[in-house]
């Protein structure tokens, strides 16, 4: 993906952020205003995307739902990312038995089924926005820990790390100054790719009633409400579904682009110089 095509998912993502931030201005109605007289109206007319079983405006609810999706996804990526990177770097830097024990723990956490843990967390802490973030971070930090671990091991073998050690620099300094800058780019790539997944996970939890509680609008809960009317009122499930789909697609495309840019080994684009030689080769008679 080149720079220009990378702009499209970026623009889509920015659009979602704008929708989330300015939701009260953009939404035509109060997302929670119940008007039973206007229930299950099809799209068009006074309500662009129709109304749900309680007569609430679907467009307004989808716009407000963006807030929950982005907040949870960003929160989960940040908490999980920071914690995972810290664990991975420590394990990689210390190495030896401590590192091995930490990384086996990471393997254990990775093997815990996500929804089982989610149900456990909700059962213990109760369903809330914060607990959804905690739950997602708890499940996903090992991803970051793994890549941070291998990037740290790589950085540790770099000449300038040995050189810095030889100048008598303390370990924390070397880690912050020389190791972390090598680790962060990979962690950012993982974070971008995780973003889409976190959106899906949040919607799944809310769909199951383990996430944000009604009447707060979340794509997952709108979908869940609409599920009963799927045969008669398709718009209830379709629009939050489309919003979810487009956001996840944009996040994934951006993640791929970020990986391509930061990881030369996985670069899909042919470097300019080589393109030139290929053209030259083609010009030569076969």
């Amino acid at each position, binding site marked *: 993906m080149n720079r220009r095509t990378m702009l499209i998912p970026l623009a889509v993502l920015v659009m979602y952020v704008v929708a989330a931030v300015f939701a009260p201005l953009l939404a035509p109605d109060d997302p929670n205003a119940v008007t039973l007289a206007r229930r299950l109206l099809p799209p068009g007319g006074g309500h662009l995307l129709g109304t749900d079983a309680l007569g609430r405006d679907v467009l307004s609810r989808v716009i407000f739902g963006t807030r929950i999706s982005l907040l949870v996804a960003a929160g989960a990526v940040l908490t999980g990312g920071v914690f995972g990177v810290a664990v991975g770097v420590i394990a990689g830097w210390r190495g030896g038995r401590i590192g091995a024990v930490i990384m086996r723990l990471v393997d254990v956490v990775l093997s815990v089924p996500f929804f089982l843990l989610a149900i456990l967390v909700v059962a213990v802490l109760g369903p809330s926005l914060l607990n959804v973030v905690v739950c997602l971070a708890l499940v996903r930090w090992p991803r970051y820990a793994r890549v941070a671990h291998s990037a740290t091991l790589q950085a540790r073998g770099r000449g300038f790390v040995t*050189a810095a050690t030889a100048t008598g620099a*303390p370990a924390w300094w070397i880690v912050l100054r020389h190791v972390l800058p090598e680790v962060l780019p990979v962690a950012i790539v993982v974070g971008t790719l995780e973003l889409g997944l976190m959106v899906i996970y949040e919607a799944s939890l809310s769909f199951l009633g383990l996430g944000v509680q009604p009447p707060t609008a979340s794509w997952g809960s709108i979908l869940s409400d609409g599920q009963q009317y799927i045969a008669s009122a398709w718009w209830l499930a379709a629009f939050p579904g489309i919003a979810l789909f487009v956001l996840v697609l944009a996040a994934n495309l951006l993640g791929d682009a970020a990986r391509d840019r930061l990881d030369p080994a996985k670069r899909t684009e042919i470097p300019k110089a080589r393109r030139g030689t290929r053209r030259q080769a083609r010009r030569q008679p076969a």
Partner: protein
Amino acid sequence: MTELLDIEDLRVDFGTGREAVRGVDLRVGRGETVAVVGESGCGKSLTALALLGLAPDGARVSGSARLDGAELVGLGERELRGIRGDRVSIIFQDPMSSLNPTTRVGTQIAEMLAIHTPMRRSARFRAAVELMESVGITDAPERARQMPHELSGGMRQRVMISMALAARPDLLIADEPTTALDVTVQAQVLALLRERTRDTAVLFITHDMGVVAEIADRVAVMYAGRVVETGTVREVLEKPQHPYTAALLRSVPDPDRPVSGELPSIPGQVPAVGEVVEGCPFSPRCPRADDACTTAPVLEAGVACWHPHTDAQTEAGAEDAR
């Protein structure tokens, strides 16, 4: 008076008896430059790294290395940190990989100063520029703001030298500091090192006999993780006693006497790390080996060999080689 650095029976073991350094004995006096020569894999770099506790993970260091009478082997990270860069500095072979490619060179020197001096932040960068000037970098104020890749190899090594000498260490370890450089640049860097280390002891690791003649006061020849011969530069280069040293010197081409046919080389190979060596490690490749060589010789009177070349024999051997 004790020597500045006194290494005795230093061993580096990669576990289950896989020894790469098999009992090195070496002394470096104050202000003296000692060259350690040997083929690749003879353990010369590892010996140097072990002194500063920089041996790779999984390596066990035993024996003794005393700096000014204080033991270095077995020190904890905290104590080592007080010695590294402050009392003992090291310059590595490749200055490009020793510098962080994402940071301006001046900043990197300033960071070194932050560790070892109480200087203020604003003073550090100025001091870094002065250090760069002291190692002969022209336009130092501009150069200090450049990235490592914008500097030439020689200049990068000058930067490393300035960092290594910034805290006025007692001992400088130079691990093949000129190997990655062009020959002309090599001569300049050697001259710089010689000039800037008049009062500093230097442990100079190299495989280049020409460099040895250029810079060292004394030489230690290493083979298979041991010192097989030591002496002053004159003694060792002109009258090598150990057959290995003699063979090594013969394999250096002489520009005044172009070689006809093949370059002289030493048959066979260095024993691999961990290979069990019984007796003299050089005996399988040695033209003088006999039954006596099945027991290991000890370093006595500057040479570890049962059948060292004496003066007359060396002359004869040299004649043969011609």
